[in-house]
């Protein structure tokens, strides 16, 4: 009985989310376009996340390199360290870790913001005042996350690789030039393109789930908290599911 209620709730959520996504695409291209709001959200979501994402990216690259280094020396392939770290960061670790950090920061903020607006009935008020709240709040935020996350991930990859360069140079010695040559020599388009494309889906998932959870928040302050929490949890899980899908699709298409 409990299970059936849970599964009903789950499928209800999935259905509602799908409907919400459908709504998004239905209204996405319809005027009026909230350009200013989109830019504002891009600034908040993208630019303001950069320090956090950059810090985590830097540490990630540095730590990954230092952790891998002893094993690479054991196997006698220390010279391949930049290539391996480069591929790991560009293909998988950069996009996924950055998207998770992004989900933690932006998913929760969108969930909480829209949740509190819902709770304080600002969304209803917006509707009364003639502004389309869905367009103004949801589409602008979802577009901003979708467009900003890939850029954040590219920057994060670059910072990670720089961290990795420092990591290699803590104990070894490698010129900056040679480090990048080795990374670019080992990279191919099939490493970069699928990894880059999936980041759009990650961004979209974080934005749409945050908005859905906030937009459909329950009444009361408790609802705000739970919608913020749910936004982070669900978008994080979605990132992993999308990652799994992405790797399978790119495998099917022969990119691996």
């Amino acid at each position, binding site marked *: 009985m409990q299970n059936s209620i849970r599964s009903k709730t789950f499928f209800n959520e999935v259905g509602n989310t799908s409907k919400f996504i459908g709504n998004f695409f239905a209204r996405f291209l319809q005027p009026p376009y909230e350009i200013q709001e989109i*830019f*504002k959200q*891009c*600034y908040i979501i*993208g*630019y303001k996340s*950069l320090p956090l994402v950059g810090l985590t990216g830097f540490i990630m690259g540095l730590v990954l390199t230092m952790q891998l280094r002893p094993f690479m020396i054991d196997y006698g392939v220390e010279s391949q360290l930049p290539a391996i770290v480069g591929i790991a960061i*560009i293909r998988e670790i950069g996009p996924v870790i950055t998207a998770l950090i992004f989900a933690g920061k932006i998913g929760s903020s969108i969930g909480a913001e829209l949740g509190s607006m819902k709770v304080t009935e600002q969304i209803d008020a917006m509707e009364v005042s003639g502004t389309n709240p869905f367009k103004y709040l949801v589409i602008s935020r979802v577009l901003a996350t979708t467009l900003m996350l*890939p*850029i*954040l991930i*590219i*920057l994060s*990859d*670059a910072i990670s690789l720089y961290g990795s360069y420092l990591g290699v140079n803590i104990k070894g010695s490698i010129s900056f030039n040679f480090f*990048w040559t080795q990374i*670019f*020599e080992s*990279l*191919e*388009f099939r490493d*970069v393109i699928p990894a*880059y494309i999936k980041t759009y889906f990650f961004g979209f998932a974080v934005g749409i789930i945050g908005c859905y959870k906030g937009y459909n928040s329950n009444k009361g302050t408790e609802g705000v908290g739970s919608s913020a929490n749910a936004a982070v949890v669900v978008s994080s899980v979605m990132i992993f599911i999308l990652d799994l899908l992405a790797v399978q699709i790119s495998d099917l298409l022969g990119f691996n």
Partner: protein
Amino acid sequence: MSSKLYKNMKLGFFVSTGMALLILLLYFIGKNRNLFGSNFVLKARFENVQGLKDGNNVRYAGIDVGSVSKIKFINDTVVEVFMNIENKMKKIIRKNALVSIGTDGLVGNKVVNISSIRKQSPLVQENDVLITRKPIDTDDMLRTLFKTNNDIAIIAENLKQTIMQINESTALWNFLKDDFVPKKLHSFVFNLDVASKKTNLILDDAKIAIDKITNGSGTISTLLYDTVLSNDLRNIVKNINNAGSQADELARKINILTNKIDADINQGYGPIHALLKDSTIVHSINRSMNNIEKATDRFNIYMEALKHNFLFRGYFKKIEKNK
């Protein structure tokens, strides 16, 4: 408004940096795959490409100059490899360059190596098919290695037996253990050294002597190098020859003479024949000798009688005194 503009600028900077990095990343990857810049196509035909793939590097003298763009079958035994080569290599690669498939490191990716054969030939042109060298086949290598291994095993076995025989040989070990042998050997070597030094000295002397003979005016030098002496010698030899022939003549005459004497002795009536061959003479001589002996005996008696004679006694005493 200005705050909004500032925010938009920051956003613009953020987005453009991200995009620039993405474009750079894609550009560098593309550059490594020779997607940009002008290339030309060279071809090579192989029986076996050993897992070569599109995008594998092409190297000339160990430097990356392009990549494999396409691999296709010509027929059931020949595979054609298309290589995108940088345009600048048109001035370097020659038509007789050798193409081979190698491996980047021990377990690395396959690479196509183009190497010069150091002979004159015109430069390559677009779509030229280069000569190929049969790639080193791992199976062949292993087969050779297997044979070598077997040979080594046989050699090792033989070596083992040899060493065992050496170990079992008491005579050899006794010989090696003996202190006397090295000492002898040492003295032998020492003597050899001394001898060689002496030989050196002798040789030096000999050299000096030869030099003297060659340049000097001593006897040997005169003998060897004086032409006047040699003429004299020749004359002497000639004279000796003459003397020899005269001696022959003399000997011949002596021979005749001795023959005559011989004949005379044997058959003749001369004194020599009488002396040597006539037996009656011996008797006569014997008789004579006996008579002489008797006569001397008698003479001795007469002399003794004379000593005792008073007339001569004084004389004999005088002789004994003088003695």
